[in-house]
C-alpha cells in the first residue's frame, strides 16, 4: 500500500504530515510488538576502573528484547538476566 493510497483512505492532503504520522505509528507498532528486530554487538572489555562495566544502549532503540553474552567456551550467545535493583554487594576491583 503506497503512502498516497493511505492518504486517500484517510482524506489527508499533506504528504509530509502523513509521513510523520506514519513514522509515529510504526514507532508505536515497534514498541508494542516485534515487527522488525535489530541486533547490536559490542566488544566486552576487561574492567580496570569504576566505569568499565558501563555500555551504551543503541541510540535508535525503541524496545529492548534480549541481552546476551558470548560464552567463549562454546562460542554461543546466551541470554543473561536483568537485575531489578543495583547490586548490594559489589566489587569494583576485578581481581579480588
Amino acid at each position, binding site marked *: 500500500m503506497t503512502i498516497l493510497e493511505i492518504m486517500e483512505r484517510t482524506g489527508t492532503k499533506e504528504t509530509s504530515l502523513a509521513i510523520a504520522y506514519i513514522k509515529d*505509528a510504526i514507532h508505536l507498532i515497534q514498541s508494542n*510488538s516485534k515487527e*522488525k528486530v535489530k541486533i547490536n554487538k559490542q566488544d566486552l572489555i576487561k*574492567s580496570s576502573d569504576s566505569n568499565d562495566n558501563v555500555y551504551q544502549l543503541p541510540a535508535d532503540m525503541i524496545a529492548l528484547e534480549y541481552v546476551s553474552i558470548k560464552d567463549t567456551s562454546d562460542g554461543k550467545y546466551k541470554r543473561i538476566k536483568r*537485575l531489578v535493583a543495583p547490586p548490594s554487594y559489589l566489587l569494583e576491583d576485578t581481581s579480588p
Partner: protein
Amino acid sequence: MSKYVDREWFYYLRGRELLLYKLLGGSSNERITQSGVLKTQQNELMYPDEDISDGLRIEYTSLSEPFVKEALEDTNIVMSGITFSAIAASNRIADSGSGFTTSKFLANDAIRVQGSSTFDGDYTISSRDSSSAYIVLNENISANELVGERITITQIPSEDSTPSETSHPNLNRMLSLALVDYLKAMEADKIGDIQRKEYYIKEFYGKLGDNESNKRKISMTFPSGPFAVR
C-alpha cells in the same frame, strides 16, 4: 574464558546505559580459600574481568527503514540451490544454471544471501548479466566461493530514504491498514473530536492484535465420547 554466562552474568539498566556484572563466586573464582576463609559474600558481584570480541549482543526494536520502494507482499523472490558461486574480484554472484532471468532479480533490488561459507549477508544488485549467468553487487564480496554449497538468495525490502507518495511503509498489509486507522485518529485529534479519535485508536490496536494472533493460529480437536449427544 567465559562459561556458564547465562547463570553468572547479569545486567542492570540505568537510563540509556547498560551495566554488566559478573558473579564473583562463580565458576571462574573460588569463594572459599584453601585455608577455609570465605572470600566473598553470597551473590557478590564484580565487573567483567575479560575481553571478549563482540561479546555483548543486544536484540531490540527500532525505527529503521520505515519506508521501502516496493510493497512487502511483492518482495517475494527466492532462489535456492547448489549452483551459486562468488567472484570477489568483480563482486559477482554467478549461477552455473543461468537462473538470474528477468523474472528474478533486477538492478537496485536488495537481497539476502544465506547458507554460504564466505559471503552471507545483505546486498543490493548493481546490474544483471543479459545471459542470466550472474548478478553484480554494489557491495564487496570478501572471498571467492565455488559452487557446491546450498545457498538461498532472498529478495528483501529496499529502503526508500527519501519517502514520497509512491513509497510504501515497511509493513505488511494488515499493519498498513492499521496505519490508516492511526492517521484517521490523528486527523480527528486535530479537529478536537476525541470520541472519534478514541474509536480509531482502538481500531489501530485491534489490527495490531489481529496481526500478532494471525501468526499464532491454534486448532484443538477433542474426541467425542461414545455416549456423547451428537
